[in-house]
């Protein structure tokens, strides 16, 4: 069978029968307790810890090992079994003050965060017109990749499809069929050797998951839907904002293919590319399976694959990476892949070969850094001679391909097992296998694990069923302003620029913004600029702005509203608060920094002094205004309004010139 090694870069989505669905996950902003951190960042779903994501060094770490346990139907879940192969140890990074025994899987959960529940229910009902369940039942969803300390994620279905459950995306109805409230997982912090590392600050933050029907037909529609859902959620002020607060799973299928889940896409810019590449992959994979069939490759042949230590053949190899690996007592493990010669370079996605898929399988099943394969060698400093000797040692037939894994021996051996399992699954199943794939930075997707079946859900016994009847009235009364309407109001009533209005309309702090303006009788533009630009600039300058509490903001704007300080002092004051011991009040800081504005008489006196000291400028007549204004600002900046200084200076010069 003839085939093209290169994958196409575009396809006819309609012809292929493309269907796309989204599972949109957004962190919910919902304080559990009333401490400052909870008020500012929101809380977690099942404990009183704040949803406080941190960059500082962990206070302590724990090491855990996971096991596959029998699922609800008695069989060990296929995903769990797959994970078991990895025999992973996991390290958790934790904090004494912002994580507790619940995140550490050392204490049963506290009662559910009622704020989070109310907010999620309200969003499900009001934004997506879903039907709410009457009784919320929390389930445990088995996940033993280490991202949850318990080995499961707590999740509850809170709303399901009703008659009008859809959103309008550029004139097209996109159906919404379900909303869940669940815990976020721990943050992946990479690996320490073969050991996975996670950070517990993110574990347990409430997430609302909105699942659409597979109503999108093109990558463009996929992106537009994702953006609209995000916009709708953000307009409520009920969700957290910032990097990592949104993740979505893309479900992509073509007619002849199968449902593939691309898990955890956080970069909207790549959504279209992931959808395109997945459609291409399904087409290419189907062709690839046909090729395997014509070559008469069977799973029995694949299951005979065996890892062999071929390190000796590389004793005198010039390739640096091999030299340094052998020095570390790592091994070169090789295996033939029967009848695969010339197929490992076959592209499944643009610039993503079967060999790349092998690498991804090696990574997820054995923690291997990567593989080398027969279709790319000799290369990287490995000679034809060495290739030949590997072929000989592995007893490779003329049409056999081979794979080399460089690393600790057991990693190499496990990689071979992983490859065997994956390839034989391809051959044993009729068509494509439903699987979970991970988004790669270049817009392609890599193998992650088989798509888990139903077996992995069972009741969370530490939570009681929750009747939602007491929230119904409150939810019915709630009206969310649509993003479009909010923008209009910000422009017309609050006199914000269009750009600022658009930005703020979908900002999770917009309710806080409005509260600051209303309570402190201060110009909306000052508040908007502070939240949308000053604070962000300070953060970029490594000022720990997260330490500034909502109460601090109120005090700052109250001082501005009352004319105690000038708006020009805001960044100085924010910096001081962020760096303070948090025991000194904002008002005291204003005094100790000398930020209080002067009254008009004192300003006039100061200006008079400045003019005295620089009397020579007066020779320029009114031309002295420019240089003298600069001198005055130096002394008076932050203590008087610029306009006032200018007016008084003008009067002073005029009076002296008389």
């Amino acid at each position: 069978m003839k085939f093209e090694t290169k994958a196409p870069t575009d396809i006819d989505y309609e012809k292929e029968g493309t269907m796309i669905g989204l599972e949109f996950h957004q962190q919910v902003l919902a304080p559990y307790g009333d401490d400052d951190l909870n008020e500012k960042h929101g809380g977690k779903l099942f404990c009183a810890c704040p949803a406080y994501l941190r960059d500082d060094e962990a206070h302590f770490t724990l090491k855990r090992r996971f096991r596959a346990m029998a699922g609800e139907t008695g069989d060990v879940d296929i995903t769990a079994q797959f994970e078991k192969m990895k025999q992973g140890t996991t390290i958790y990074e934790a904090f004494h003050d912002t994580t507790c025994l619940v995140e550490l899987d050392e204490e049963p959960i506290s009662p559910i965060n009622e704020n989070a529940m109310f907010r999620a229910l309200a969003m499900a009902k009001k934004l997506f017109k879903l039907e709410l369940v009457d009784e919320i039942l929390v389930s445990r969803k088995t996940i033993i990749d280490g991202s949850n300390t318990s080995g499961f994620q707590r999740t509850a279905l809170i709303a399901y499809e009703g008659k009008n459950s859809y959103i309008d995306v550029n004139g097209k109805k996109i159906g919404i069929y379900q909303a869940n409230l669940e815990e976020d997982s721990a943050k992946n912090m990479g690996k320490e050797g073969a050991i996975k590392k996670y950070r517990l600050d993110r574990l347990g933050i409430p997430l609302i998951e909105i699942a659409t029907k597979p109503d999108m037909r093109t990558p463009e529609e996929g992106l537009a839907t994702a953006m609209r859902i995000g916009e709708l959620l953000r307009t409520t002020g009920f969700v957290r904002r910032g990097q990592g607060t949104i993740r979505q799973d893309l479900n992509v299928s073509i007619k002849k293919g199968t449902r593939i889940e691309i898990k955890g896409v956080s970069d909207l810019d790549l959504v279209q590319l992931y959808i395109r590449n997945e459609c291409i992959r399904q087409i290419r994979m189907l062709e690839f399976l046909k090729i395997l069939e014509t070559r008469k490759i069977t799973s029995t042949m694949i299951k005979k694959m065996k890892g062999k230590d071929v390190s000796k053949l590389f004793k005198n190899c010039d390739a640096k990476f091999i030299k340094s690996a052998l020095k570390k007592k790592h091994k070169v493990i090789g295996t033939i892949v029967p009848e695969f010669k010339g197929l490992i370079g076959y592209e499944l996605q643009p610039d993503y070969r079967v060999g790349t898929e092998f690498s991804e399988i090696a990574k997820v099943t054995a923690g291997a850094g990567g593989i080398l394969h027969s279709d790319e060698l000799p290369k990287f400093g490995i000679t034809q001679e060495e290739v030949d000797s590997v072929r000989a040692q592995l007893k490779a037939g003329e049409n056999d391909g081979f794979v080399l894994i460089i690393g600790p021996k057991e990693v190499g051996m496990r990689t071979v097992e992983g490859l065997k399992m994956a390839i034989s699954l391809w051959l044993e199943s009729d068509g494509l296998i439903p699987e979970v794939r991970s988004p790669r930075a270049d817009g392609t997707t890599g193998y992650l694990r088989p798509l888990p079946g139903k077996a992995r859900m069972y009741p969370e016994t530490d939570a009681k069923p929750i009747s939602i009847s007491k929230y119904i009235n409150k939810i019915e009364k709630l009206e969310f302003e649509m993003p479009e309407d909010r923008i209009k109001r910000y422009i017309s009533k609050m006199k914000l620029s269009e750009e600022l209005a658009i930005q703020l309309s979908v900002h999770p702090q917009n309710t806080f913004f409005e509260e600051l303006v209303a309570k402190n009788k201060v110009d909306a533009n000052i508040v908007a600029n502070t939240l949308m630009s000053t604070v962000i600039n300070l953060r970029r300058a490594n000022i720990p702005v997260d330490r500034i509490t909502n109460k601090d903001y109120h005090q700052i704007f109250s001082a501005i509203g009352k004319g105690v300080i000038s708006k020009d002092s805001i960044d100085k004051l924010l910096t001081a608060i962020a760096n303070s011991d948090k025991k000194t009040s904002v008002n005291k800081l204003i005094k100790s920094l000398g930020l209080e504005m002067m009254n008009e008489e004192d300003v006039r006196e100061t200006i008079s002094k400045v003019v005295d000291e620089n009397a020579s400028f007066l020779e320029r007549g009114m031309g002295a205004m420019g240089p003298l204004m600069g001198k005055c600002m130096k002394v008076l900046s932050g203590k008087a309004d610029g306009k006032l200084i200018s007016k008084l200076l003008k009067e002073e010069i005029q009076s002296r010139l008389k």
Partner: protein
Amino acid sequence: MAKKKSKKTSTSLYGNYNDMLKSRFESLKIQPGDHIVIKYGEKNIDGNLMAQTEMGDPSSIVVKLDNGYNIGIKVDETVHIIKKAGSVDLEKFQIRVPKQKKGLPGITLLGTGGTIASRIDYKTGGVVMAMEPEEIFASLPELFEEVSFDDVKSLFTLASEDLASPQWKVMAKHSADAINDGTRGVVLLHGTDTMGYSSAALSFMLPDVPVPVVFTGAQRSSDRGSFDGAFNLISAARIAANADIASVMVCMHGSSNDDYCNISRGTKVRKMHTTRRDAFLTINDTPMMNIDYQGIMNELNNDLPRRKKGNVDPKLEYDEKVALIKIYPGIAPDLMDYYIDKGYHGLIIEGTGLGHVPSFPPKEDNRDFLHAVKRAVDEGIFVGMTSQCLNGRVHPYVYRSTRITYQSGVIYLEDMLPETALIKLGWTLANYEDKSVAKIMSSNLAGEISSRSYYQEYMRNEI
């Protein structure tokens, strides 16, 4: 491979549904697990019926949807329920017990209940104690590479709080029989709450035991990937099979990591945290040894009783007429009178500090507990003194009140744990003559009294 279907649990079929729904289900012959469709108003829900839990709303139907989620739909008598084909058997537990290999050290596994023997009942959503020992170790295939099982038995499936001396006797008897039949060691699966009591009881009931008798359990449920009982059980089995140590012991996590288990003397161990994996601490002693994830044993105590040949002659009698009294400010002396009048044979006091009871309170307060203690001693009741500090030793000479208490005939029990003292007393009263009770209680039989207190034995708050 042997297959075995586990026992049905005895929870009521429908759980907490109201009568209307129960009778509706019954007349439609619908059982939990059956595929149903609920039509109620505009709602149309398709899924499998689940039982309602004790805390759930009796008028909500709990349904497992096709995607695995459970939801509750509140209904009244206008609901329309339709039975469909295709039920799921929610109780299907296939147990595949790996084949035993020959030539491996043989141990005996005895189940008593507890979290380690519990799993979720998928019909009710509650935790039930339904696991057979086979079910637990079927998930630990690596165990079968290292040990073989002379016998595996479920003695009972009882929670910690429901176990007492009748069960201790059964545990001790079965352990003794297995030992005398030549097993290399015994592992007992036990609830954690009272594991320390049972380990103390067996420490005395199996005097001079020649092989390891190891209690183990779990602080996390067995359904989860983070189940701590797996590592505890593997470690306990390794100790039972291979450790050169002969004692009744507790084997549980030594830290919050899954890195090592501590092996504590059965008489010196206490559950000191409600939920953490590393809840068990050795008090007033160091652990005998620890064992890491790979099974490497590290002896921590230079005074270990060694494994030896020979049988054990169990002393199983137990006198239940004993009680433990915790002293607190304001304690009423008539509490003491109650036990005396009810004919108790022995009392252990958990005194304050070095072993105090209220001895010289202001007259008008009527709180002279010492007076009541004297009455007990005068009536021939054994009274032993321990400390509610748990850590450290009682001492009768330092203060006037302890001197007087001591002189009134109360026996000060050194650094013995209050719970251990209680059990030792019940056992001593049943197995020895009255005149030797005080002597037996004051001598060390199974590590319960140590002659010296070492600096490193006390766990402090360390941050």
